[in-house]
């Protein structure tokens, strides 16, 4: 845990300095907003990293859970006028129920078949968002969702939302790190390493796979709620297959072997996609693809493996 503490400290100080920097440097004055989305996506990818990197199960349908959280929050606050906190709780409840129902049969599948099953699930949820017009507003979505508030305090300014989102991310990160360094985390990694052996050593593998699937769906659902109350508008296209794939890419680019990879990959890709590549005008999509390709080709362990590779290069050259 010692080295984790150092990392957490680095992240926290980065997060504290960041808004100050943004405030004083006009050229990056819009970076705070991007960081808010990065934080929201980080929640999804932390869960996904636990699922993929630790337990070795893939999901190409996690945008669906983001959407379920988002729509639960949106519908409960905008349509029924209830407190956003109820919306978040409902999102968590609905997501985890759906995750159980989908997870039990899906997680028996392996490899590409699991990928297809989760992908299909994501598509089905996406279609439901589109077709249940009375509930979800259909493809045109619905607007005028209230901001998140505690009493009379509204999380409406960028800075307050930045603090809120990253506080939640840090909590999620703590929870995830604690899990990783426990018998639960070891059980997941054992499943990843050799499912049969894990089972024979007394790990109830199907239950643990389901647990992590549900947990990651809860992470995504909370992220969805935060997304909704920030953008105050929902339509299905924010929760389609491409988003599911984007989340997987964030995890892999950062490095599957560690939740830190998920955080780094998410921040990097969010800034790349939304900010840094706009200088390339028409070619931005192309450049995005090429960067992605180069990272996966030359750093298959993701960005977190970079220092290790550099270190081993250095020792080799000696």
């Amino acid at each position, binding site marked *: 845990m010692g080295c984790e503490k150092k990392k957490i400290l680095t992240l926290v100080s980065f997060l504290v300095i960041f808004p100050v920097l943004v405030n004083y440097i006009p050229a990056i004055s819009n970076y705070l907003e991007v960081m808010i989305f990065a934080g929201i996506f980080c929640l999804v990818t932390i869960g996904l990293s636990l699922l993929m990197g630790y337990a070795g199960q893939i999901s190409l349908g996690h945008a669906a859970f983001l959407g379920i959280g988002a729509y639960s929050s949106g519908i409960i606050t905008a349509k029924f006028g209830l407190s956003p906190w109820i919306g978040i709780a409902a999102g968590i409840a609905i997501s985890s129920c759906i995750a159980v129902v989908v997870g039990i049969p899906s997680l028996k599948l392996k490899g590409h078949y699991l990928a297809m099953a989760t992908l299909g699930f994501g598509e089905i949820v996406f279609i439901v968002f589109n077709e249940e017009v009375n509930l979800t507003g259909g493809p045109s979505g619905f607007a005028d969702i209230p901001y998140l508030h505690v009493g009379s305090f509204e999380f409406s300014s960028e800075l307050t939302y930045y603090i809120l989102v990253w506080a939640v991310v840090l909590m999620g990160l703590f929870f995830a790190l*604690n899990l990783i360094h426990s018998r639960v985390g070891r059980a997941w990694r*054992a499943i990843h390493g050799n499912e049969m*052996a894990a*089972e024979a050593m007394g790990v*109830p593998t199907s239950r643990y796979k389901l647990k992590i699937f549900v947990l990651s769906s809860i992470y995504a659902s909370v992220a969805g709620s935060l997304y909704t109350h920030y953008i105050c508008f929902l339509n299905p296209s924010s929760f389609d297959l491409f988003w599911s794939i984007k989340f997987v890419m964030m995890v892999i680019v950062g490095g599957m072997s560690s939740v830190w990879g998920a955080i780094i990959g998410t921040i990097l890709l969010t800034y790349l996609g939304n900010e840094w590549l706009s200088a390339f005008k028409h070619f931005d999509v192309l450049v995005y693809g090429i960067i992605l390709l180069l990272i996966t080709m030359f750093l298959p362990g993701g960005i977190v493996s970079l220092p290790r590779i550099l270190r081993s290069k250095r020792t080799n050259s000696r």
Partner: protein
Amino acid sequence: MTSLLEARGITKHFGGIKALNDITFRVKPGQIKAIIGPNGAGKTTLFNCISGVLKADKGEIRLNGESIVKLPPHRRAAAGISRTFQNVAIFPEMTVLENVLVGRHCRSKCEMLKAGFRTMSMRREEKDIEDKGWSFLEFVGLEEQADKLASELPLGDQRMLEIARALATEPKIVLLDEPAGGLNTKETERLAELIHQIRNSGVTVLLVEHDMNLVMDISDEILVINFGKKLAEGDPKSVKENPDVINAYLGEDIDFSDL
């Protein structure tokens, strides 16, 4: 009822092939029992049926008189059956110590919420898991390698690691699937000693092994199967002299006259 493990009428089909046909045997507490037989006789399949990795089509398996045949593998582990694998099945991306800690899973109980919030009881339990883990590492002599990735160990040490991991579940009986496979003479000698130590610590041992020297040397009792059927059972001496057994091994590269 003095048997620890009792298997009755175990039968297993793969498609049209009968891999196991009505196998019945017992293991007494504190015994070292070996299962031998030519390649493809069904030894590993039998192990898989006992540990629950495969479901037997027919038959009854009892541990201490209680039927375990309906239990999934992880419940059998909790009930007291642990095992190693023929092709070492360690968790390659975990450290040596962590591999052993996984074995403590069924002897600890802090679930996700407690673990996620790192409650006091969880920390206490985690400390206990780690202490026990170290003691099993020391038992097989791997404590120096504790922080290495399991995949970085040489094969011999990986086999030892698997044994430590299996013992960490505190089994009543441990199934060793070809523990000497790929070991050199020196390592095999150490293994023999280790198996004795395991038995002395109160854990019953059931093993599948090809190394006849080892088997004859350490076993109290031997079960011979061929083509999925029980061929013979008894102490090493009687098995060695059994004409059916000699017949079955004719094609194999084993010279019984040496023993």
